[in-house]
């Protein structure tokens, strides 16, 4: 998300319209609208092991740096998070917009903010990955009519471990969990052990995910070891739609019958400790690029030597790009890829 600077930055060495030196999401403001900030490379793999769109990951690899544009929806979300009253029931925010308008990137920007503030981030990269194209569906051991997805659950647990390393030893379990006749996790053990068990024992990983979510829900609001919990789900309407999965007798599986989806829905219902009622959500619209944002994007691509066609660097070419892409961020990206 780029913030367009109306007042130019007066730093003599690195002066550019489309880049800002403010790499901390907490300090970014309307001044930086339309500019690109760089995610420090050290943070990159811990904060975003999953969750970034695949084309953006390719772009990061090509340009050797991860730059995100500061845009209005992300700034709005971050300001809401800064000013929300955390003693009241949790607020839910919904980013909505047309295809390719930058919802996932805004979400990732907010996730970056949350992790720089030291919150525990529960980032589900794409809820659609859990409701379609699952190769293995095991019947759940915990609940007879539900189905487990061991591969997806263990993948997610592995990424969760990478994102929230320092929380894993601090949070203690408040309940005893029994996995099989011989294995159980006692009360008071650190969360890290639970997660490791889920990663190694693939069969019970979905139940481990459920347990992790429950623990975090119970402990999030607590005053003693109080930490802030942020749940970010990309493609959240996948949790309530239809699945493409089928049972062995070829009848379709409803989303409620999947353990992962069931537990995640409970999480979004926000009956966390101390929070009783259900809240309506705050909608945050994500629009296509404005003129200034488009300019920024164009200059960024020029700077990174991405726009190579000689005509694309002229005014005519730029007008044609605006016409062809209608300022849609993803369409522009795909166009500039081969130009």
């Amino acid at each position, binding site marked *: 998300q780029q913030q367009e600077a109306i007042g130019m930055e007066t730093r003599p060495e690195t002066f550019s319209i489309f880049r800002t030196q403010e790499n901390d999401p907490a300090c970014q403001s309307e001044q930086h609208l339309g500019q690109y900030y760089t995610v420090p490379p050290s943070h990159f793999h811990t904060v975003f092991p999953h969750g970034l769109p695949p084309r953006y990951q*390719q772009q990061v*690899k*090509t*340009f*050797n740096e991860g730059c995100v544009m500061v845009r209005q929806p992300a700034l709005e979300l971050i300001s809401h998070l800064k000013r929300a009253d955390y003693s009241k029931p949790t607020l839910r925010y919904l980013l909505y917009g047309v295809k390719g308008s930058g919802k996932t990137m805004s979400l990732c920007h907010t996730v970056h903010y949350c992790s720089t503030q030291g919150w525990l981030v529960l980032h589900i990269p794409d809820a659609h990955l859990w409701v379609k194209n699952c190769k293995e569906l095991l019947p759940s051991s915990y609940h007879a009519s539900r189905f487990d997805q061991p591969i997806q659950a263990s993948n997610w647990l592995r990424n969760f471990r990478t994102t929230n390393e320092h929380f894993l030893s601090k949070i203690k379990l408040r309940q005893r969990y029994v996995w099989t006749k011989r294995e159980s996790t006692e009360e008071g053990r650190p969360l890290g052990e639970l997660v490791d068990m889920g990663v190694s024992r693939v069969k019970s990983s979905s139940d481990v995910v459920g347990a992790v979510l429950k623990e975090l829900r119970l402990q999030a609001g607590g005053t003693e070891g109080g930490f802030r919990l942020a749940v970010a789900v990309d493609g959240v309407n996948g949790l309530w739609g239809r699945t493409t999965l089928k049972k062995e007798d070829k009848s379709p599986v409803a989303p409620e019958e999947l353990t992962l989806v069931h537990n995640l829905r409970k999480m979004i219902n926000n009956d966390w400790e101390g929070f009783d009622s259900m809240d309506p959500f705050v909608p945050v619209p994500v629009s296509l690029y404005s003129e200034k944002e488009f300019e920024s994007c164009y200059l960024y691509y020029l700077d*990174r*030597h*991405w726009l*190579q*066609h*000689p*005509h*694309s660097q*002229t005014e*005519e*070419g730029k007008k*044609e790009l605006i016409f062809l892409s209608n300022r849609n961020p993803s369409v522009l990206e795909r166009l500039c*890829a*081969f*130009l």
Partner: protein
Amino acid sequence: MAASLTGLLKPWTPRVLLVRWSRYNPYYLEPEPRKEVYHIPETELTPEQKEERELKSVRPIKAATNSVTSSVFNDPVLSKFVNMMMKDGDKIIAKGIITQTLENMKRKQVEKYHKAPEGKKAEIECNPYAIFHQALENCKPVIGLASIQKGGKFYQVPIPLTDNRRRFLAMKWMITECRDNKHRRTLMYEKLSQELLAAFSKEGNVVKRKHELHKMAESNRAYAHYRWW
């Protein structure tokens, strides 16, 4: 009989309007897709251009084919390559493969560019179009062979090639090389980008094939007199 006579008295309009085929009545004029031509103001037109405009207001014009654009990014050589790559008339897939190829080449080069030290940066060519054109140039043979019959036997005689034939051969070799001689599981755009980058630096199988053709032509120099044109 009366019906056919009244039919002949009507002014001539074609019953079936030709829009896709190339056999138009010579009465029809070619369409002009370039934008610059229409931006010249009235005063700056030469007499020929004025005459042409008069003609265009009277005569019918052929329908423009799908491959003709007024876009600044239009490249005739690339369009020809796309058409040669196309199978069963599926231009969307062929165009998709070419765009992926260009993107792939650009990615590889830009990655190399960003990781290279300052001195080497200027030598790395990042423009996929420049690479494509240069690679094609490097693959074009200068001289070709024709099979000419003399005294009952057929001899391979070296002959000069026209520009169109050279371009056609270079593209054909490139495509067949990528389709046949590569690993089965790699995708076409990956194979094409590897081959084009190799041809750009004058290595790879296609330039080898060109060199072999040149050697054959050189070794058959004695038969050059069998050419009569």
